């Protein structure tokens, strides 16, 4: 089959690779009908995520048709149409039972390396380096789905792929980020980053009862899409802290979402220092947005971090967090927790997630797609792939 494989920084290629096979009894094989390129794939593309190996198949947002099931898979049959969460979870460990699906104990064959790096290992993920198990991903024609009895959700035939593909990652990610804000009546939520995750944060925040959403970015089409979702927008070139303060009667937003993560661009001095250090390999991450969140958030508020960070952060004003009694919530999305309720939102037409798609490419065009997405060219916000 054809698959999009990683070969190094800014080097992804569509190669012919063996078809996936059943390796464990709870596996299934899915023929992919739609997949997508994620903002976090760009960290892989830019070479910032350690433990990638040449030839790894990328892609963690995908859906399709079950074509084969292992001996112990009883809830799926050949022909079922499924969306697959990017988190691989066993369903039986301490963490899965607490619905902390992205922290599963039993799905990372490379758990030890992750333990050495982080103290403990979480779940395996598709296409996201050997720290997360090295699982072959779904920017391909077929994919092996471990623990197929725990992850995938069946979707009804009437709904097009484009409306449900984002259940695999970015819609639950935006929703969990908003849910983590503990939104109360009257709240203002500030969201840095109007990429696809930020867009779903905006709509989820309103769905969860936010009074107002303020979105911060610099890319015009992304800010326009944010406004279409009901947000008020601020340019990241402005004095964001001051603007937010004036817009909230001096209090600051009740919750701040960092939907940008480790590759933040920034225009202040701290951002320049981040970039210089990163170039000198003195640091991995650029937490420019996280600093702004900690600064801007009202006392006793919540900073919610769906953005991906990989290593150590420099110069984080943790004293601000302490002085203001902030709550910080982070982590990889517990996708399985949200599949059913968010599918229901789509089915009753409360939201149409396909709004975020700007580009539809074939798998063969994916390498160009990565470039376009990285450089935000051609009004690119979200790319889906047809294998």
């Amino acid at each position: 089959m054809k698959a999009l494989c990683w070969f190094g920084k800014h080097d992804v290629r569509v190669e012919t690779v063996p078809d996936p096979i059943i390796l464990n009894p709870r596996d299934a094989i899915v023929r992919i009908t739609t997949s997508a390129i994620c903002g976090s794939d760009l960290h892989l593309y830019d070479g910032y995520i350690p433990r990638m190996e040449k030839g790894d198949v990328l892609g963690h947002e995908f859906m399709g048709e079950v074509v084969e099931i292992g001996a112990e898979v009883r809830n799926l049959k050949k022909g079922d149409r499924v969306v697959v969460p990017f988190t691989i979870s066993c369903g039986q460990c301490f963490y899965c039972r607490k619905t902390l699906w992205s922290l599963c104990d039993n799905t990372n064959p490379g758990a030890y390396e992750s333990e050495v790096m982080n103290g403990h290992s979480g779940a395996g993920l598709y296409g996201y380096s050997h720290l997360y198990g090295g699982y072959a991903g779904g920017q391909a024609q077929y994919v092996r789905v471990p623990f197929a009895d725990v992850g995938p959700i069946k979707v009804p035939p009437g709904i097009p792929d484009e409306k449900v593909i984002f259940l695999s990652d970015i819609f639950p990610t935006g929703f969990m980020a908003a849910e983590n804000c503990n939104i109360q009546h009257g709240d203002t939520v500030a969201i840095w980053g109007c990429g696809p995750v930020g867009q779903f944060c905006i709509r989820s925040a309103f769905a969860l009862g936010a009074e107002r959403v303020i979105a911060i970015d610099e890319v015009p089409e992304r800010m326009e899409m944010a406004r279409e979702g009901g947000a008020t927008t601020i340019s990241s070139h402005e004095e964001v802290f001051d603007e937010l303060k004036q817009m909230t009667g001096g209090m600051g937003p009740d919750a701040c979402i960092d939907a940008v993560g480790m590759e933040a661009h920034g225009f202040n001095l701290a951002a320049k220092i981040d970039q210089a250090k990163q170039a000198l390999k003195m640091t991995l991450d650029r937490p420019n947005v996280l600093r702004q969140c900690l600064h801007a958030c009202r006392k006793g508020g919540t900073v919610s971090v769906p953005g991906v960070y990989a290593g150590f952060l420099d110069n984080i004003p943790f004293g601000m967090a302490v002085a203001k009694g902030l709550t910080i919530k982070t982590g990889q999305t517990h996708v399985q927790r949200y599949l059913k309720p968010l599918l229901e939102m789509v089915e009753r037409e409360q939201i149409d997630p396909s709004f975020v798609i700007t580009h539809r490419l074939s798998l063969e065009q994916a390498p160009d797609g990565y470039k376009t997405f990285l450089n935000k060219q051609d009004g690119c916000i979200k790319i889906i792939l047809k294998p």
Partner: protein
Amino acid sequence: MVYSVTILRPALELYQYWRSLENLPRFIGELQSVVQTGKDVSHWKIKSAQGSFYEWDARILEDKAGEVLSWESMPGSDIDMAGSVRFAMAPGGRGTYVKVALKYAVTGGKLGAAIAKWTGDDPKRHLADSLIRFKALMETGEIPTVEGQTRANED
């Protein structure tokens, strides 16, 4: 070397699986076979890189169902190996704490090479991997793997 995991299964069940020493190769890496040759005696085999085997005998020292199992290589072996696994009830319905302690000393000879092959460069990792696999096997019935999965050749 010591490593601990918490497994959401009863201590007795975990002890019994471990006590049936033939099960050990299912989760301990590079171990070819363990055969019980007597009440408290077993014969261990690991594969060598050349395709032959390294072998030695071990005996059980302490054996309390659901609590502890310890073993050591027989005197006169080329390898001086001792190990124990302890099971204790975990609080809050979390199942069982499982703690494994292992010690190797190599006295010389070809079994020195065997141990190096068995545990690799990083014996701590070998122990950790074995216990992580034991936990996955006991909780889910499977050991997570990507061996044999699809990928492109490195160019």
